[in-house]
């Protein structure tokens, strides 16, 4: 019987069984940021422990970084103190830190892959739930809490329980104007936000195989929104092509060795899965959320469901969502006015996302009254986009071109919604209050759909706004 990638990676990293039946799992790569690590360093100090293998940890600052004016000290002294704590902690413990202005600062899940830190067959942990992003490379990558950040710093291991594996196959060609973001929203819509509890998601099938690495990252990024802590894609030629020549990727003879080792982690053709689900690409339309969980999603030309159309167990959250969002059951989602448009976040702030939007946005204008901003995922993405003229396209259209950070995805920085503003957003969560206003409303969609909403001033079908596919 063959094995899945998940099983192979697990077995290669299992140090030993713990007394309570969990396993001690070795973590190849640990990524740090400023929000979930200061308490962990505090715990280390209290216990008199050191960072055991500092060469396996890399840090950056992303959540609290202002995207407009990064002059220090920041206007928010708490944000400044978090940045300084990270500087001090990484310096004291010999951990490489991609600081502001280093050229490599950015959202932790954007810079890991971009620098070639993220590699197939690795176990990767970070105090952030979107660590699942790195699974796009065939790594087993997952978010951890702060006490676990302490555990990894002190021992490079975690106490962990093996997950089941669900294979999610997507077959066929995506229609023009349909992206990985639509695929993952479609999957979560059908499997539910709790559907992945206890599972790692292995994404495969011809649609996924045809995706570039950045699309695979978008897919894996939102595994956590589907309840799965881990999501991954088997490594292949696309993976290798992306990694080759990246600063931290193996070079020369090591590169050839690495490719062989990485391929061996691929799930075997006769691997057995705890579950298999298949989706058809042709059934996936540009998809948008209408509620307060990422599973409350519909195709752009769909209507917000009537309560009686929903399974009974989904109705209470649907009622809550309708009340919060101010929507009527049965109402079309298209045409709902938006006040804010946000392109950014670890889901969709990569160079390819910005390129794709710029390609269509050129010559269009953001509707008057819409506050539109684009926040590149990293300093490198920003620089490339500026060199390629992408920044200019956005600015000419009326988007504010910002500096890299998590921005209003979770509003731990000055970017946030006001009052009950509705934001068309390329981020990953539409929770109540997520974007910084307790009454603010988020509608999730692909970056191109955000651009369409910005131009139309309302939730719109990007294919119509930009004349795609006709």
């Amino acid at each position, binding site marked *: 019987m063959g094995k899945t990638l998940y099983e192979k990676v697990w077995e290669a990293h299992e140090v030993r069984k713990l*007394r309570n039946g969990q396993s001690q799992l070795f973590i190849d790569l640990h990524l740090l940021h400023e929000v979930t690590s200061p308490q962990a360093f505090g715990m280390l100090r209290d216990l008199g422990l050191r960072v055991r293998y500092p060469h396996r940890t890399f840090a950056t600052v992303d959540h609290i970084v202002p995207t407009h004016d990064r002059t220090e000290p920041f206007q928010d002294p708490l944000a400044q103190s978090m940045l300084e704590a990270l500087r001090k902690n990484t310096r004291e413990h010999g951990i490489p830190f991609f600081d502001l202005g280093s050229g490599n600062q950015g959202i932790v899940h954007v810079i890991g892959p971009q620098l070639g830190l993220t590699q197939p067959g690795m176990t990767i942990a970070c105090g952030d739930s979107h660590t699942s992003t790195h699974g796009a490379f065939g790594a087993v990558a997952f978010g951890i809490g702060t*006490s676990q950040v*302490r555990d990894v710093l002190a021992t490079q291991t975690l106490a962990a329980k093996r997950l089941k594996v669900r294979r999610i196959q997507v077959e066929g060609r995506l229609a023009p104007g349909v992206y990985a973001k639509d695929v993952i929203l479609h999957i979560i819509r059908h499997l539910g936000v709790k559907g992945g509890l206890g599972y790692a998601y292995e994404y495969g099938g011809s649609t996924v195989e045809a995706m570039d690495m950045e699309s695979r990252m978008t897919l894996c990024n939102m595994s956590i929104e589907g309840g799965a802590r881990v999501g991954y894609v088997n490594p292949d030629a696309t993976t290798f092509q992306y990694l080759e020549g990246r600063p931290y990727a193996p070079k020369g003879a090591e590169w050839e060795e690495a490719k062989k080792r990485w391929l061996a982690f691929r799930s075997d053709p006769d691997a057995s899965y705890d579950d298999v689900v298949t989706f058809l690409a042709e059934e996936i339309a540009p998809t948008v959320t209408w509620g307060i969980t990422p599973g409350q999603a519909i195709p752009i030309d769909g209507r917000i469901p009537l309560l009686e159309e929903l399974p009974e167990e989904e109705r209470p959250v649907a009622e809550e969502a309708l009340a919060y969002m101010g929507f009527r059951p049965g109402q079309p989602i298209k045409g709902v006015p938006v006040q804010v448009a946000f392109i950014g976040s670890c889901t969709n702030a990569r160079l390819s996302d910005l390129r794709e939007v710029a390609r269509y946005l050129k010559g269009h204008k953001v509707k008057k009254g819409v506050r539109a901003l684009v926040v590149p995922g990293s300093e490198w993405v920003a620089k490339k986009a500026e060199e390629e003229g992408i920044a200019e396209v956005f600015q000419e259209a009326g988007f504010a071109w910002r500096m890299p950070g998590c921005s209003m995805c979770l509003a731990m920085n000055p970017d946030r919604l006001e009052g009950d503003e509705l934001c068309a957003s390329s981020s990953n969560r539409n929770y109540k209050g997520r974007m910084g206003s307790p009454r603010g409303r988020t509608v999730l969609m692909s970056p191109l759909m955000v651009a369409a909403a910005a131009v139309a001033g309302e939730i719109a079908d990007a294919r119509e706004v930009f004349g795609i596919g006709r």
Partner: protein
Amino acid sequence: MLEKFTVIRGRAVPLRGEDIDTDRIIPARFMKSLTFEGLGQYLFYDERFDEKGNPKPHPLNDPRYQGATILVVESGFGSGSSREHAPQAIKRAGFRAIIGESFAEIFFGNATAIGLPCVSLAPEDLGVLFRKVEENPALEVEIDLVNKEVRFGERVAPLFLREEAREALVEGLWDPIGELLEAGELLDAFDRKLPYPRRAE
């Protein structure tokens, strides 16, 4: 020596709602801090207080539930962000355990690792528990991790908890750091064996 959780007794506060995410448990703006101290006061802040800071109707603001030490929730509790601030806020607000139908993975792990047991009941038993504590906020609830049951009023409901988490709580092994450190030199072997990112000059 870590606390051993065998039987947890106390009054319970019912918190209805499915898929309650960690952004709601503790909004991101309260994470701008270098420690977890004082987080208890911000628990469910935006649901408990309006934009001027005035209390809104909420079970946690209800005087009848003051001093309750068990939080009763529905399914999918703790979804979303990996922030340990969420279980920390619950614990620091005085709660000793959570009873629900199901919990998000990372939340469950974070809560267990700080000694905040999260136990599950079958939907029917959970429904009865909600009704009982809503009718009678003074009701005493007992979570028995040894015999794997929750007792309230006349009812004895089997509880579900992953065996390794249950054992860790009962035996006082819920914070794994000590045991992880015991691996000692075995770790060096893994560090030598497993590749890590190297910058080629």
